[in-house]
């Protein structure tokens, strides 16, 4: 992935090492966990991990675009819940607070309509936020913090607080199915990651995203339509929040009003640990994938070793800091 490539698209050993901080760290973690408990490497467990990171991972892909433009989106967790609820309403054919886990008696519109509804609503909500950011010149932090509470409120209003549960097998397949041994959510995540990588690395649009984040004023003077690009990244992250919501609902067989609380921090961590700068212009999809994997492996590995929940918090916090510190140290070593 891009973490290992240099700007020319080829492989450059120094750069490889330089950008390898989080990846090296990830490998080290996996080794440690395997030594502690060899069954950690059980394919089932590895696939579990990929499935687990796929939800926040999908959103993190979109967040990579946003953060590359020096923006931020705090609303993703709430937006996920909102899109999930919309998908559920479409899938079940109404807002009735259907608690039944069986699908009999429901008159829904099928998984495709539900998926479409989720991503369209997500993208539209992102677009509205993007427009407020660019037209009214309100900083992204404020707009999406507003979005965080607004979308949660809307979700609760739609569902009247409760979950909507029980989808048909075709929809559930997107959360629980396997293709060969590989969980479907993991495949969706992988496909999305490759797509995002190509877009950011090999399209004019992708390069424009980097340019806007590197220096918005210079980008404008160079003739880029900065505002449109800014709006577009919020549309993208909204789209991914919608997609993630669909997969999550399919996986849990339920859309909850409390879904996604606190996801914004997990998602942003994945992006930032992956080396994307919060000040924009620097970062890669490969880094984000590694960042998401690092968090996933850490949580799974600690749980696997029955580390107490309180200690888990402490260890996870420290290791995240360490991973980034190690990356900085590596980069500074390579530089001299």
């Amino acid at each position: 992935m891009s973490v290992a490539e240099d700007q020319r698209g080829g492989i450059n050993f120094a750069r490889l090492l330089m950008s390898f901080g989080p990846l090296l760290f990830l490998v080290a973690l996996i080794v440690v966990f395997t030594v502690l408990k060899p069954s950690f490497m059980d394919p089932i467990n590895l696939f579990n991990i990929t499935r687990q990171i796929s939800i926040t991972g999908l959103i993190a892909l979109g967040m990579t675009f946003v953060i590359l433009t020096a923006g931020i989106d705090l609303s993703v967790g709430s937006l996920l819940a909102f899109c999930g609820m919309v998908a559920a309403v479409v899938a079940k054919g109404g807002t009735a607070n259907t608690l039944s886990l069986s699908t009999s008696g429901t008159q829904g519109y099928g998984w495709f309509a539900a998926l479409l509804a989720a991503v369209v609503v997500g993208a539209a909500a992102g677009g509205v936020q993007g427009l407020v950011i660019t037209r009214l010149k309100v900083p992204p932090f404020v707009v999406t913090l507003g979005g965080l509470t607004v979308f949660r409120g809307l979700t609760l209003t739609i569902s009247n607080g409760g979950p909507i549960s029980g989808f048909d097998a075709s929809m559930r397949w997107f959360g629980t199915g396997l293709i060969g041994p590989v969980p479907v959510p993991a495949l969706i995540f992988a496909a999305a990651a490759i797509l995002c990588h190509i877009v950011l690395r090999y399209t004019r649009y992708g390069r424009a995203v980097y340019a806007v984040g590197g220096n918005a004023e210079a980008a404008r003077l160079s003739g880029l339509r900065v505002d449109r690009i800014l709006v577009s990244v919020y549309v993208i992250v909204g789209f991914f929040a919608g997609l993630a919501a669909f997969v999550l609902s399919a996986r849990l067989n339920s859309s909850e009003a409390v879904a996604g609380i606190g996801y914004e921090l997990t998602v942003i961590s994945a992006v930032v640990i992956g080396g994307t700068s919060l000040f924009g212009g620097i970062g890669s999809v490969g880094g984000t994938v590694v960042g998401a994997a690092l968090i996933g492996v850490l949580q799974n590995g600690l749980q696997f070793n029955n580390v107490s929940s309180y200690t888990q918090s402490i260890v996870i916090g420290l290791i995240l800091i360490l991973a980034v510190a190690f990356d900085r140290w590596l980069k500074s070593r390579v530089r001299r």
Partner: protein
Amino acid sequence: MPAEAASPKPVLLAVEGITKHFSGVTALSDVSLDIRPGEILGLLGENGAGKSTLLKILSGVMPPSSGHIIFDGADYQPSSPQDAKRLGIVTIYQELSLIPTLTVAENIFIGRAPVGPLGLVSWRRMEAASRDIIARVGLSIDPMTPVSALSVAEQQLVEIARALSLKSRLIIMDEPTSALTETEVQRLLSIMDRLRKDKVAIMFVTHRLEEASAICDRMTVLRDGRLAGHLNREGGPIALPRIIEKMVGRAASELYARPAQRAVAGDVVLSVRGLRTVRDPEAPHAIVLDGVDIDLKAGEILGVAGLVGSGRTELARAIFGADRIAAGTITLDGKPIAPASPADAIALGIGLVPEDRKHQAIFAALGILPNFSVASLGSFSNGFGFMAERRERDALAGFRKMLSIRMASAEQAIEGLSGGNQQKVILARWLARDPKVLIVDEPTRGVDVGAKTEVHQILVQLAARGIAVMMISSELPEVLAVSDRIVTMRRGRITGQMPGVEANEERLMELMALDRKETP
């Protein structure tokens, strides 16, 4: 058809009665001018005269408050830089508009990267093409270097290269040469000459009047936002005194005049021996210091000349503790010093006016007062750490007068000042500290001709007070005008030194390019 042939040189762009107000300031007032294809029009004026503002209006960055523009016979109201670009109006901005996090190649191809059959960007083609493009302006850096690793001069060349690579009918250049040395300037002028032959119109802003005189067909001079007049080439180049008179509104005084009487330089204050600095692999082409010996005496102005990338800035930063030193010694007043940070160097009595004003010197969003006093917070505060604002303001008022800084109030954001006036505030920042050694790196970059003389006089006065001044400059006339002694650098080494009175441009150029002779 015949009608068109009758007027071989129709007006390409005409500005009619443009006025521009900012809050409280009238930057332009009823300005008119025109330019034809194949013509180089010089746009001249003192700092803050409104040149950049006019150019920004032409390139769609901001709308005028009133007046209108005709381009190619049609009404022209650009709402964004793209509109201008689409019509073939290309601009090189005064404040560089490169994306620091992207590579040189990407900056050159921003928004128009070459794509392959699938619509995907071809990095290989982009690299190859940009290598050719930057070669035209005499740059030989790797196009895959991030722009953040380039020196200001290199960035300026990249910006020029980009503009030249665009298909254009009108090129607007706002001080493209301010960070360049003679060689690059000459190359640019010859490129401009070629473009002129290709019927491209060029609007050219510079504070280096020799350049303007050499290349411009016509000049339009602004003064305080108003049109001061037009000058035409009549037979020969437009003479400097004519330009200056139009700019400042009075007869030209003698410029670049060495004061006849200069105090004899005193003891050696700062002495550098065997200075080496470490190579930065992010910029593998970077020339690092390779054993520099230099002495600086009290009361003298030491001019440092060299080509772009010769290591002058590097030397200044090393002495100032801003970069790490690999080997060598620095002694101040006979005592060895090892400043580990600028704070250490400043405490020892060293000051540095850096070359990159925007990134290294100014606090754009802050007012002029905090910009001025930031290096002297200790002397402008009392024992309890409270600012002594009255003293601070009085000091600023003094420098405002002394340096004739044009500003509205001490609270005004420094952003709102013209480049030259910003530079004066930064100079004032260091003058307020009364340092033992003051290093100025390109002190008059972007400073107008009047202010330039003032800056030179200030440097001379400082030296007269016994301060050791080291002046790095890419403008040889400037180096020749004020230096008591001149050293030349080339590839991180000192290649020669001589007293100022014995120097001339030819000798210096030879030393700056010395290794051509050295190599067998």
